[in-house]
Structure formats: structure tokens, C-alpha cells
């Protein structure tokens, strides 16, 4: 691919300009328009991406309120971070919200995608209906969910009362808060992930399913033995994006509790890593500490992406898909032989 590209473009270059053998214009000079074309991204990234990233390393070794002079403190921010119970709480909160939103979300998305794949009618209606939550602003959605989970007049409590159960003060206790936030996340992203899974399902050859059917595999066997293994790369994609998104949860708890003074809500039950970062940096102007939290977040994201990759994808990913494909191919071949034989016998009988 790369080779043919190169050949083609050198051929193109020679046809456009013929500089003569003695004075070939520099390859770099010829490519100036291309450099200009790709430069906006790199210039913007240098100013608003790379520079701030390096600056944030520098910043995290300082104590600074954003106005006065920066004071060098070495690794103090980081050593304080490691012993800061609120920071650890923000990590466990984030991880709990991530797990109780992501696991049901991906399982549900898989079920929905499977049903969508089998449904031949209303498909585009379903797709739009399932995707709409994802394009809706988190702020507006959080307000609606906040009212549904509301302690006194929430729809959920009204429902609990109507079936004779006690009210639950969802937004006053750590678990209730986490469940509320996780529901918002799951509501917004289940349909999105289902659409991605659906695309993955559609890429699986129908021959494989035909073969499984001929083998008399039950739908659940087909699902777990064929669909899930072949979907691995797609599942990896959704798991990694869910992890990166899940570790950066912020808006939900900020909208629910931001105006109450305590950004994490009662008992800091909804305090996430990014809300702790925001609160330190922009609430109490501790820019150095905020930068250090940013780096901790970065390390966590890298760590969890690697774990995901190891668990779901990883080195044996391709091998497993290939093995599944080979198994199915063998089955198809065996079927064919059996069918041929049966056909022959049939013919013989006549």
C-alpha cells in the first residue's frame, strides 16, 4: 500500500514539473504547500496543547494562586496528593460511578444491538431514537434526572410510595448520588454503544451464522461463542472510550451540586477526579495542586486503557478471532461434505 502510494506520487511529481537533471528543487521546498496545509493543527496544538502540557509539569512543582509569584515546592504537591483522603475519595467515587454505569451500559448495548441486527423493520427509527440521548446536552439531562431522583418530590420516590415502599433520599447519600450520576451516563451512552456494536455485527459475515444454524447451535450459544468473540475489537473500542469518558466525569455532579457550595454533594458522594481538580484550581485558586491532579488523572487513564486492552483485546485478540473464523470455516466445509454426501446418497437412492 505504502509502496504503491510512493511510486504513484513520485510518478505524479515527475509529470508536473521537469526541473532538469542538474538543479533538482529541494523536496522540502516542493512540499511547502502541504506543510502549510497541515500546519494549522500543529500550530494550534503547540500553543493550546503541547505548551500547556509541559507548563503543567512545571506548574505541578509549584505553589501558585494564579496572581502572586510562583513558589517552587518540588514534589510536595504530589506527596500531599498521595496522602490527601479527599483525592482518594474522588478516585474511588469516579471508579464506582464508572463501573456501575459502564458494565450495565455495555451489556444492555450488546442486547439492543443484537435485537436491532435481527430486526428488519423500523430500523432507522430505532437508530434515531436510540441515538438522541447522546446528542442531548449533559446539563439539560442532568436537570431532568436530578428532578426524577429528587429527595422529596421526585418521580422515582413517588413511584416507590405508590407501590408502598419508603422514600429514599437519593441525592443526600453517597450511594444514591452515585446511582443517579451513573444512570445519567448510562442513559446518554447506551444507545451510542449499541449503534457501534450494530456496525460491528453487520461486519460479521452471515455465512458464519448460517453454519452455526446448520449445526443446530442455540441462539445463546451463537451469541456467546460466535458473536462476542468476533466483536472483540469493537468491544475494545467501546470499553476504551467508555473508560476515558468515565474517568473524566464532571458535568453531572457539577450541575447537581455545583450551586450548593460543596461540589461533590452531601458527604462528597459525587466528588469525581475532575470535579476535585476544578474545585482546587478554579474554586480555591490552587493552580499547582490542580496541575498535579491533572497528571494523576492522566496516569489513571493510561493505566486503565492498558488494563482494558489486556483484558479484552491484547495480543491474543487476532488469534482468537482467527481461531473462531477457522472453526467456522471447518464447520462450513464439513457441512458441505455432509450435504454433498447426502445429496449423492439421495441421488443414489433414485
Amino acid at each position, binding site marked *: 500500500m505504502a509502496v504503491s502510494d510512493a511510486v504513484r506520487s513520485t510518478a505524479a511529481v515527475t509529470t508536473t514539473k521537469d526541473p532538469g537533471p542538474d538543479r533538482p528543487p529541494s523536496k522540502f521546498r516542493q*512540499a511547502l504547500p502541504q506543510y502549510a496545509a*497541515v500546519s494549522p493543527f500543529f500550530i494550534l496544538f503547540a500553543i493550546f496543547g503541547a505548551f500547556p502540557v509541559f507548563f503543567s509539569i512545571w506548574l505541578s512543582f509549584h505553589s501558585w494562586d494564579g496572581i502572586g509569584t510562583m513558589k517552587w515546592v518540588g514534589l510536595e504537591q504530589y506527596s500531599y496528593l498521595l496522602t490527601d483522603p479527599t483525592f482518594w475519595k474522588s478516585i474511588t467515587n469516579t471508579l464506582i460511578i464508572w463501573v456501575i454505569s459502564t458494565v450495565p451500559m455495555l451489556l444492555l448495548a450488546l442486547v439492543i444491538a443484537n435485537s436491532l441486527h435481527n430486526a428488519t423493520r423500523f430500523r432507522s427509527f430505532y437508530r434515531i431514537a436510540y441515538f438522541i440521548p447522546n*446528542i442531548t446536552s449533559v446539563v439539560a439531562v442532568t436537570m431532568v434526572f436530578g428532578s426524577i431522583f429528587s429527595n422529596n418530590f421526585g418521580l422515582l420516590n413517588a413511584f416507590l410510595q405508590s407501590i408502598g415502599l419508603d422514600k429514599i433520599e437519593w441525592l443526600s447519600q453517597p450511594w444514591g448520588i452515585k446511582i443517579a450520576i451513573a444512570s445519567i451516563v448510562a442513559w446518554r451512552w447506551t444507545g451510542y454503544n449499541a449503534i457501534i456494536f450494530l456496525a460491528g455485527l453487520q461486519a460479521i459475515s452471515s455465512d458464519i451464522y448460517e453454519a452455526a444454524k446448520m449445526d443446530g447451535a442455540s441462539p445463546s450459544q451463537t451469541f456467546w461463542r460466535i458473536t462476542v468473540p468476533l466483536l472483540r475489537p469493537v468491544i475494545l473500542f467501546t470499553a476504551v472510550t467508555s473508560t476515558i469518558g468515565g474517568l473524566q466525569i464532571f458535568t453531572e455532579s457539577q450541575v447537581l451540586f455545583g450551586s450548593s457550595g460543596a461540589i461533590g454533594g452531601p458527604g462528597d458522594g459525587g466528588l469525581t477526579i475532575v470535579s476535585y481538580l*476544578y474545585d482546587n484550581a478554579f474554586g480555591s485558586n490552587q493552580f499547582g495542586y490542580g496541575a498535579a491532579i491533572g497528571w494523576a488523572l492522566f496516569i489513571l487513564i493510561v493505566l486503565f486503557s492498558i488494563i482494558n486492552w489486556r483484558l479484552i483485546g491484547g495480543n491474543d485478540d487476532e488469534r482468537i478471532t482467527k481461531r473462531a473464523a477457522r472453526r467456522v470455516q471447518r464447520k462450513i466445509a464439513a457441512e458441505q461434505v455432509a450435504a454433498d454426501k447426502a445429496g449423492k446418497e439421495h441421488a443414489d437412492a433414485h
Partner: protein
Amino acid sequence: MRTEKVRTVVGHVVLMFGVLVSIFPFYWMLVMASNTTPDIFTYPPKLLIGSHLFENMGNVLDNIDFFGSMLITLFASLGVTVLVLFFDSLAAFAFAKYEFPGRNLLFGILLATFMIPSQLALVPQFVTLAEFGWIGSLKALIIPGAANAFGIFWMRQYAKGAIPDELISAAKVDGAGFFRQYLTVGLPVLRPGLAFLGIFTFINVWNDYLWPLIVMTDPNKLTLQVALQQLNGVYGTDYSMVMAGALMSVIPLIGVFLIGGRHFIADIAAGAMKF
């Protein structure tokens, strides 16, 4: 055969249930936005759409500069979208169709920037913008996001398959320079890809919350999301008004989505399959 039919019906029942869960919060938003707050604070709660919608919407307009915020959000979203479409497609065109020294290295760097979470450098980004004197101005919302790695990556994949090399060669023979080749050969072919990237970018900027919360510090120049949260913070107990505001903020985007939605969904899924 019969079990097949039963399975189809069960499948649709499952799917319809999911659709109800997807749609219900919108319905509930409308119910709360169209009833009075005392109506909402009763047991049993009102479950049907009421008749106070316009009154509640009027209250929103009295309490926050809704249209002002909407205008700022619209300018920011359109500004970023136009710039992203131009810069990303131009870069993607160069990456996809031309060989130049360092191309692979530059593209590798571009891919590596995916790994950096946007919150990592939040503090220094704010400090940088403060140095520029951009805090509180539209520039802070538009310029940093004017080109992005995702869009270039996505458009490059698209351009590789969509633009025939012969067309570029023909344009070269005609004496067209690089930029003219981009305009006459690249852009027309890339149009469907641009439609997707445009909607995607517009929605993301429109809904963004953390960044405008930090950089739009002037209370008279807030984006819609931040203004909405402020309404919620100040008048949080007036549910019907807050929900009317939420409804008003959500409608334009759903409109954009319903116009371009079907292709958009297919493109998002296709993008995920390429990773």
C-alpha cells in the same frame, strides 16, 4: 418458523421498551416545563402535559439572557465548525494524497495527541488564554478548537478512499497548484464527510460545558449550557421554569440532528470501526 416469528416479536418488544426509556426524559422535561411548580411538588405528581408552557418559557426569558446566550453559543459552534471543516479537510487532503518528507512522522505525532486527555492541561490552558487576554471573549471558545486530530484522522481515512488519484494528476497537468487542487478536486468529493464532521463538531461545541464554564467569566456573555446551569443554581426550586429553559436549549440541537441524523449515525459507527 413460528419460533422465528415469536423471536422477532420479542425483539421488537425489547427494542420498543428501550425506545421508551430513551424518550421518557424528554417527555418528562415537557411535563415539568408545562405545569406549574406547585403542580410538580404534589403527590401524586402530574404525569400529563400541562398548559403553562409559554408562561414558563416567558419566565426563563425574564430571568436569563436566553437569546443572548444562544447567540454566543451559535457563534462559537458555527465558528469552530467552519474552521474545523476548513483546516481539518485541508490537512487531511495533504496527508491522504501527497507524499512529502516527514509525512508519516507528522501523522504519527497527530495520532499520539489523541492520548492526551483534555483535562490534563486545563489549568495552564486557562493561564495561557489569560496571558493572551482572551478570557471572557469568543476567541477563547473558538480558536483553541479550530483544528483537531480526530477530524483530520477521520477525514484522511475518508479522503484516501474517496478521491481518485487520476483527478489530482489531471488537475496538476492543467497547472493547478496544491490549493486549487484542494478546492476543485478535494472539496467536492469530500462533501459527505464534511457533513458528518460538521454536525459532529457543532453538537460537541454546543453542548460543551467545562471549557466555557472556565473561560467565559463575564456573566453577560455565557454560553447556553452555563446560563442554564446558572438558572438552575439560582432558581433551582422553580422546577417548571428551569425545565422550560432546559427544553428550549435542547430543541435547536435535536432539530439539527433530525435533519442530518440518519447519515450521521451511520458515519459515527463507520468511524468507530476504523480504529
